[in-house]
């Protein structure tokens, strides 16, 4: 890792008064948007809409964004989150269709997705390539490999008899996907906020040289960050495949921009401007609600994208305005 400008990182805020105002402004904006859609979009507050929003939109993006949070907290970025997701989905579908049991399929999928992260880790820690370029390479290779394997993007459907009902399963009345994302958020959130590992990641992300001069194994930390990030994406891949009962090539790339946006939105909510899991989850919710509400009031998909982009831009402008001048 370097202090290269290639590694975008959350704009750190150091100007207390503006920062405090900003931290209030964002939740206020969120509440305003919720209120607006509650009034303007019929059915927005209905149980059906809200639960579908959570189960279909929130869960997947949240997992990918959790993975992205790790990379950004360490001062890097992971452009290959979608690739990890896709590889996991591919392995999951392929293994189930080949007749292997669910445990093997799960294990294989997690392994396949995590391997993408391991590849990044090798490039970053072993060859000292910047995270941006390493994961950009993985993204290109991963996309091309999928096109080759799938005849240019043909979906691979799960055989009806091999379909596990993961997406619809419930434990104690709570849908399994929600439980999975909660568990993931809890483990990653704890590790980042309270764990020794999280502190090392923090130091690395803030000032790599200080991490090095303090005797931290900075390259090993960076490697684990990318492996852990890919693991979260692999989990999302399994869930996606189980939801649509298919592996749809390159579908992971759709999550990339939103995941980055969510992490940066979340970082502006933190007192120190640090990437953090609770903030990321709120950022994901923020994006989901906006997209869902716009859909309900009849905006087309493309206008939703424009609105989402404008929102992220707004948040980032906020965070830069909030920075100490001359920093």
């Amino acid at each position, binding site marked *: 890792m370097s202090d290269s400008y290639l590694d975008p990182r959350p704009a*750190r805020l150091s100007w207390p008064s503006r920062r405090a105002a900003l931290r209030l402004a964002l939740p206020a904006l969120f509440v305003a948007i919720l209120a607006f859609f509650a009034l303007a979009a019929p059915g927005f507050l209905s149980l059906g809409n809200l639960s579908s929003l959570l189960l279909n939109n929130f869960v997947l993006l949240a997992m990918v964004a959790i993975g992205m949070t790790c990379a950004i907290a360490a001062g890097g970025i992971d452009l290959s989150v979608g690739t990890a997701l896709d590889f996991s989905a591919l392995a999951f579908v392929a293994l189930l269709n080949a007749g292997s049991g669910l445990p093997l399929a799960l294990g294989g999928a997690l392994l396949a997705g995590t391997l993408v992260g391991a590849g990044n880790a090798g490039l970053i820690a072993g060859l000292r390539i910047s995270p941006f370029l390493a994961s950009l390479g993985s993204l290109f290779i991963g996309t091309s490999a999928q096109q080759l394997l799938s005849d240019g993007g043909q979906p691979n459907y799960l055989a009806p008899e091999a379909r596990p009902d993961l997406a619809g399963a419930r434990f104690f009345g709570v849908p399994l996907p929600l439980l999975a994302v909660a568990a993931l958020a809890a483990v990653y959130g704890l590790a980042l906020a*309270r*764990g*020794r590992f999280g502190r090392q990641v923090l130091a690395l992300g803030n000032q790599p040289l*200080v*991490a*090095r*001069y303090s*005797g931290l194994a900075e390259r090993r930390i960076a490697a684990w960050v990318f492996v852990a990030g890919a693991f979260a994406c692999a989990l999302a891949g399994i869930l996606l495949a189980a939801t649509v009962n298919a592996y749809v090539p390159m579908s992971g790339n759709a999550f990339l921009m939103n995941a980055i946006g969510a992490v940066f939105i979340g970082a502006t909510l933190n007192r120190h401007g640090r990437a953090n899991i609770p903030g990321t989850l709120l950022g994901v919710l923020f994006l989901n609600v906006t997209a869902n509400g716009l859909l309900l009031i009849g905006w087309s998909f493309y206008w939703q994208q424009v609105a989402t982009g404008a929102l992220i831009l707004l948040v980032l402008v906020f965070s830069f305005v909030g920075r100490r001048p001359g920093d």
Partner: protein
Amino acid sequence: MSAAETPPQAVVLELRGIVKRFGATRALDGASLRVRRGSVHGLVGENGAGKSTLIKVLAGIHRPDAGSLLVDGRAHAHFDPRQVERLGIRFIHQERLLPAGFTVDEALFFGQERRLGPWLDRRAQRREAERLLEHWFGLRLPAGALVGELSSAEQQVLQIVRALIVKPRVLVFDEPSVALVRSEVERLLCIVRRLRDEGLAIVYISHYLQEIEALCDRVTVLRNGRDVAEVDPRATSPERIARLMVNREVGELYPKSAPAPGAPLLEVRGLGRGRAYRDIDLRVRRGEVVGLTGLVGSGAKELLKSLFGLAPPDTGEVRLDGRPLALRTPRQAVAEGIALLPEERRRQGVALDLSVQENVTLAALPRFSRFGLLSRRAERRETLGLIERLRIKSAGPQATVRQLSGGNQQKVALAKWFARRSSLYLLDEPSVGIDIGAKAEIYRLIGELAREGAGVLILSSDLPELLGLCERIHVMHRGRIAARFEAGEADSDKLLAVATGAVAQQETSVHESIPG
């Protein structure tokens, strides 16, 4: 040269009472300088005396808070970089600033390209590059050679020629000889004399008093941001100039410790690393404070880095507590109980956007964690203890380090190693850029460390500091330890004389030129 209309020996450039403050510190406190046409004017001073700030004011990088700059008698409140170029003031810096991937002609004409209509006239550029190099320095270099393939001296020449293309009137050399070997230095001096004879006004900044004596017509001594004297170096001994440079006030700054050195902690024998340093023998015992000094380029800094695993040596051995060490990473060094307080505090010593607590525990995280989870209570307890012991002035363990003063940031950097319970402390310019009060406290802490049985090796260019703190001082010159002084037998003059090469003590051979 375009200075033809100016009468000989006229003052071309004058700085009057320049004041430059950074926050609470006054980097320049009324510094003045007068440079005449056709003369070489030396500028000397200890580190932190304000030389580089003065140069940056001259280059238009810093705006002075008070004082004026006069060119041919016309006063300016400040410069900006473009104006500086228009006025014909050019700079030769110590670091090689030309891009390694450029060819000779590209480097020479970068930003001042020869054009033919809208296009570059590469042919004219190449021809002129070769002609200029030959004309000024008798150097035959193909214009297509890459800068990165040239020797340090050749790159230096390139910088000078680059500055000469615009026909400057004032040329400022900022420690130009640091990267050169002796034979190359001789060449450089000849070049500078020739430029002077052409009628240029030259400012020559150097730590090496020999060069000043050999070259300069006048020399201004800078101390604490002020010009304390302007003398003729040929009529003044280097020892006297050194005395003028060194701050005399010592007082009660230093802890009076009764040295009771224990077992050998660090033993270095015959250590060498490439061109950086050679044949280094050094010993630090427990309870001992040992000093190391040398000018930029003397190898002292590299040596310190090697002892922290940052620049592995090629030859020789390092022992810690009698065990041989092969340090290749800082991580190994920290695991062995070695601590480094780096000079670049804000880049390497403390993480500015982390809290005091997060900084203090960073090197000792395993001590504060169980099953991978940190105990914030244990961290807080340790941090509070160290805040009190080191008298760190902050809003508490959660205060962001960026908000602290330089001295308190330095204490945080030191506290990190206290928390790690390090046994060998390598301190690189421990008091640079911190106020006198914090300085005294850092010195007190160094004394405490030694009394508790740690070994301390201080690299410093602040000579009174070394004399006040150390039981033994090693002086490096051009890659070797040129002299060792026991406490009491050294003074600033002697140290500086050895460091600058004015006296070649115990040094058997001068720096031979490097083959190839």
